[in-house]
């Protein structure tokens, strides 16, 4: 697993998220995109959707189950979800630490 693979999943998830968003709220779909950064466009509902889309993509595309809803991440979401790069690093740490999540679904 490397950070580029994870970044691609996040960017693809942003593309999928955009299908549900009004034009003015659509996210940039690039590795440089800002998420919860002050200049970013991601709102709380978008964050929930993005978390689930990324968890599903990690499971289906990279066969890796992660959980982005642990207490530590959600206590300060603006840290991990500042931008695509910070989120990719956060996920890589989870994967490397073997912090398998509680599954992407039921």
């Amino acid at each position: 697993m490397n950070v580029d693979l994870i970044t691609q999943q996040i960017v693809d998830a942003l593309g999928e998220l955009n299908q549900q968003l009004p034009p003015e709220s659509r996210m940039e779909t690039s590795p440089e995109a800002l998420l919860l950064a002050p200049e970013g466009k991601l709102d709380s509902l978008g964050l929930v959707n993005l978390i689930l889309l990324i968890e599903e993509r990690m499971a289906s595309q990279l066969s890796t189950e992660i959980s982005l809803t642990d207490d530590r991440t959600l206590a300060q979401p603006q840290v991990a979800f500042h931008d695509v790069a910070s989120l990719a690093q956060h996920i890589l740490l989870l994967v490397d630490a073997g912090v398998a999540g509680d599954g992407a679904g039921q």
Partner: protein
Amino acid sequence: MNDLPVVHGLLISDFNAQNLAGLLDNSPEPPRFAIRHAPFGQVMQALTDPTMDCWQPQPEVLIVWTRPQSVLPGFQRLLENARPGAEGLSAQVDAFSEAVRAASTRARWVLVMTWTLPTYERGLGLIDWKSEQGLARQLASANLRLVENLQVLPNVYVLDAARWMALTGAEHAYNPKLWYLGKIAFGARVFQQAAQDIRAAVLAADGKARKLVLLDLDDTLWGGIVGDVGWEGIRLGGHDAIGEAFLDFQSGLKALKNRGVLLGIVSKNDEQIALEAIRRHPEMVLRLEDFAAWRVNWDDKAANVRALVTELNLGLQSTVFIDDNPIERSRVRQALPEVLVPEWPEDTLYYRRALQALTCFDAPTITEEDLERTRLYVTERQRAAAREESQTFDEWLRSLETRVIVEPLSAVNLPRTAQLLNKTNQMNLATRRLTEAELQAWASEQGRGVWTFRVQDRFGDSGLTGIASLQRERESARIVDFVLSCRVMGRRVEETILSYLAQAARELGARQLDATYLPTSKNGVCLTFWKERSGFEQLPDGEAFRRSLDLPYATPAGVELVRG
């Protein structure tokens, strides 16, 4: 897409449904939606209180999607394995149905989703269907009662949400994280499936259903090249997976035909050899009488599609073209962009599934005329053959022994009348589009009348194929609707309808008949009729017509007008 009129929708749900609204608004496929949602969690208030802001402006489509444990208090008790309460679930379902009924008067179409439960809810396990308290059993019972309550409302349609869950798969349909973090009841893929069916429902309710499937033959309706192997050598049925798949595909097409969709053939083949296969192969499900028309030759398929659609008096936008050959699909798609040309699986075993995935045939009702549609085209072929044998047009008309039966609008003919009003483009004076309820309400006003016309001749019954309406205006009676199916156009039915309207207008006390033609991109033939054959005076503005009722308006020779 940006040229299409916007369909305003109101979404009432007991969960956060912004994802669905976004998918509908953003879709590049028609119709073009502008969806707003009622404050979530206020379902009953939103349904029953027309003064809530969410009802302004009035929506065309109302979408109601709720969870049973939310709108049926007894269901929440069932989830805790408690009894649902003294009044039982039925009374709660009835109360919800009544709220939907009240709301249904404020939208043209109402779409209500069936209730579902997360797939991980097992209820009473082994005895969940055996016990009266079983969750699955109670859910089925509540849904059935809901459907029965709503089926009397002509503009309300129930969509099967359980199907979306099944298509999505349990893992993606429900995710507790979505609920606990965002009060989102379903996964993104469920909303994608729902959005697809909602689009299809609105297109169907708006009379935009596709009506014709044009089919290739070799490797589409059967396996192999009939010109090479003969009808005895094609793969169809038998103890053969591929033969069975073709048989099932034909069976799916037959089911479409039996709900009123026309089938036609466009094939590069020797006509005699191809038709012989259809006539003689013992396992052929589709026979010649199942096809409205065909073009079997070596010409360009796009040209054949266009010619055949014209022959059937349909529009290209009503047509679907199915061919296993990607080059032919590409050719038709490029030449005739209004025709829907679905991508087609390379593997024959997926043909039936690909057919069933098409939502474009969904229609708001299935009338007797729908079920008889193919037969009507077959008799039209016989009629045209008789025309070729007749020396003159008048002789042919007399030989048809046409009867036009007129009946006032009634509860019995209302569904077909609304259907015809909403889908007829060519011989349509005003191109009004009204739901059954709107048409009924319009007709009930003082000084107005709506009549239907059924056309029969010696070849058969063409069914309810004409509509006319009058509105009294001082000394005049105005013809508001003048609608005739292309099936019976040009057989003096038009003049027969006008002769009846002249009688009806006199009975209303009018002294003249007026009509105003409202042009669309498709009703030029109607203007031609009014200018050349109606017997009305064309007023100086060019689109208004008048006839004094002092002049008798005779029913055309050879046509019998009967009051039903």
